[in-house]
């Protein structure tokens, strides 16, 4: 992955609509959810009056810094950043802000220490996401249950927050988490391998599995199917993302909950708020929290599955 740029609409190469400010979206483009967010930016850019370009951070803080600097050099009006970690972007975005660029943190809220390193934030609160998962489990097992948690990429900000929210919410309750492991990347095969090993070790003690992402949960389901035991089919699985797979799994697995972050809502909000901050609109909001949608068999009819 390398820092790369793309103007708004496909076909509009090199001819940004005159006068429209540019918003740079900086994320890890190999990650399907972030690639989908980019599509949503492109889809709605005109509506919010932006040219959008995209720079890849390649999952590396140094490249992320380079990408932020690149965006500033290209004289963008706003930067929407989906950061690699909670802290590494701070000096670069602070510098960008001092140059008059609006920085909008997307997907994750700023850490307490980094509160001044972004103009505004539009986020699902992953801590809240973890809590939501915990609540769903408590609701499903009022008499208590045991299960496991499979995290996202070790050290990734979303994985850290989801774990934090989840473990705080279950602490002291009758829900016992037997084990918590992370893969080295958001890699379904690794999630499946971890699930396999956990199933081997804990067997039918596993009543729920909280997996930090829906595609990883696909691996979890594969692992459960492979043991071919009645208890395995009853396991409650909770995934996060609410993508196409998440929706499908809600329907196909007996007991699946997907905690959805709606990319279109988030990206639209990013552009809306960024424009307001650019125009110094008094109605601009600093911290925008987009609530999670909780997709279950009961609620699925109320949502449409995204196309990723």
């Amino acid at each position, binding site marked *: *992955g*390398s*820092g*790369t*740029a*793309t*103007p708004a609409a*496909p076909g*509009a*190469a*090199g*001819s940004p609509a005159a006068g429209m400010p540019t918003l740079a979206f900086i994320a890890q*483009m190999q990650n399907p959810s972030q*690639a989908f967010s*980019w599509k949503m930016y492109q889809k709605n850019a005109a509506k919010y009056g932006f040219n959008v*370009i*995209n*720079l*890849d951070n*390649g*999952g*590396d*803080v*140094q*490249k992320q*810094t*380079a*990408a932020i*600097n*690149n965006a*500033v*050099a*290209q*004289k963008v009006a706003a930067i929407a950043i989906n950061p*690699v*970690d*909670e*802290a*590494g*972007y*701070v*000096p*670069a975005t602070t510098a960008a802000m001092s140059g008059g660029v609006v920085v909008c943190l997307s997907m994750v809220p700023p*850490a307490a*220490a*980094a509160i001044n390193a972004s103009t505004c934030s539009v986020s699902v609160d992953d801590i809240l996401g973890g809590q939501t998962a915990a609540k769903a489990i408590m609701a499903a097992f009022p008499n208590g249950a045991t299960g496991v948690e499979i995290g996202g*990429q*070790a*050290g*990734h*900000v979303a*994985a*850290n927050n989801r774990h934090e929210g989840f473990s705080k919410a279950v602490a002291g309750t009758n829900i016992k988490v037997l084990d918590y492991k*992370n893969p080295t990347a958001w890699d379904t095969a690794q999630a499946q391998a971890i699930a396999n090993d956990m199933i081997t070790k804990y067997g039918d003690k596993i009543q729920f599995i909280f997996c930090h992402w829906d595609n990883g949960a696909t691996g979890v389901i594969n692992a459960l199917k492979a043991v071919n035991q009645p208890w395995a089919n009853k396991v409650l699985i909770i995934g996060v993302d609410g993508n196409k797979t998440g929706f499908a799994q809600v329907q196909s697995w007996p007991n699946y909950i997907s905690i959805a972050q709606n990319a279109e809502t988030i990206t639209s909000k990013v552009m809306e708020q960024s424009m307001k901050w650019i125009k110094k609109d008094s109605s601009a909001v600093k911290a925008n929290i987009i609530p999670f949608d909780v997709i279950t068999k009961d609620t699925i009819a109320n949502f449409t599955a995204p196309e990723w």
Partner: protein
Amino acid sequence: MNARIIEVSKTVLALQKAFLAIILVVLAMAVFNMIPATRSEFFSQVNLVDLLKSSSIFLILAMGETVTLIAGGVDLSIGGLMALTGVVVIQLINAGVPIPVAIALCLLLGLVVGAVNAFVSVYQRTEPFIITLGMGIVLTGIGLQLTDAHPVTATDQGFQSIANTEIFGPVPILVLVMLAVVAVVYWMLRNTSFGRNVYAVGGDYEVAKYSGINVLRTKAATYLICSLTATLGGVMLASQLNSASSIAGDNTPLYVVCAVVVGGTSVAGGIGGAIKSAIGLVLLGILTNAFSMLRIDTLVSYLPTALLGIIIVSILWLDSYGRKRKREAV
């Protein structure tokens, strides 16, 4: 005198591919800049300084790696060490250790890691490729454990100023540190006995040994140097970002080694140099930057990665092909 001219022109020729590629990129960007539709900020002062800044840490790491590669070794633990150093230096500072002491302790950590790498791969004669890969995994694990996988931020704002204070106009200390490291390694490789011994050891281990060079110690020292630059890079990165994360170095080693090789340092040992490596890194940096300025993603998304790969392959291909032609011409 004649011989000197030949030597110099040979060096230039050896630099040729990566160097020519840089010139080509710059020329291409200049041409694009004459066309309104593709005009970019590539030549703006901001961008050029950014380019330097964003290559600096990789360059610092590359200097140590170059020394190790010339000696016929390789060190893939630099990513893990860089990340761990960042974490440790910030945790120490946050725990109240004075900044210079914290940095000194980190350099010590680097020496320890380098010593282990050297002991296992040099003195025990194992495959450094695998040993240092393993070491990188160990170091990442230690970082994860120390931080519970969370990034750490320095509370003392003084730390940040180490890398970021601007001295010559917009040029920060970080860039000066990088230039100093390049200069020191350049001088050391060219003009010290140790430096020349490094070439001898990498060029022909047995011959170097029979010629009275302490091959083990020389080779071991290159691992210490490599670890030291990785540590320095880690401290500078932490200072630049005022924070550190234990997973920051994931893709770093292959990127650095690849850039060094594109610059013309041989992984087989015996051939290479500080300037060559610097050129290789600058080339990859400039390419990424140029692609981003030209917004190549407009054509096809993910194209820049492919182009980067194709350019790396082309340069290496041309390099090997040149050597083959030379072999055949004899």
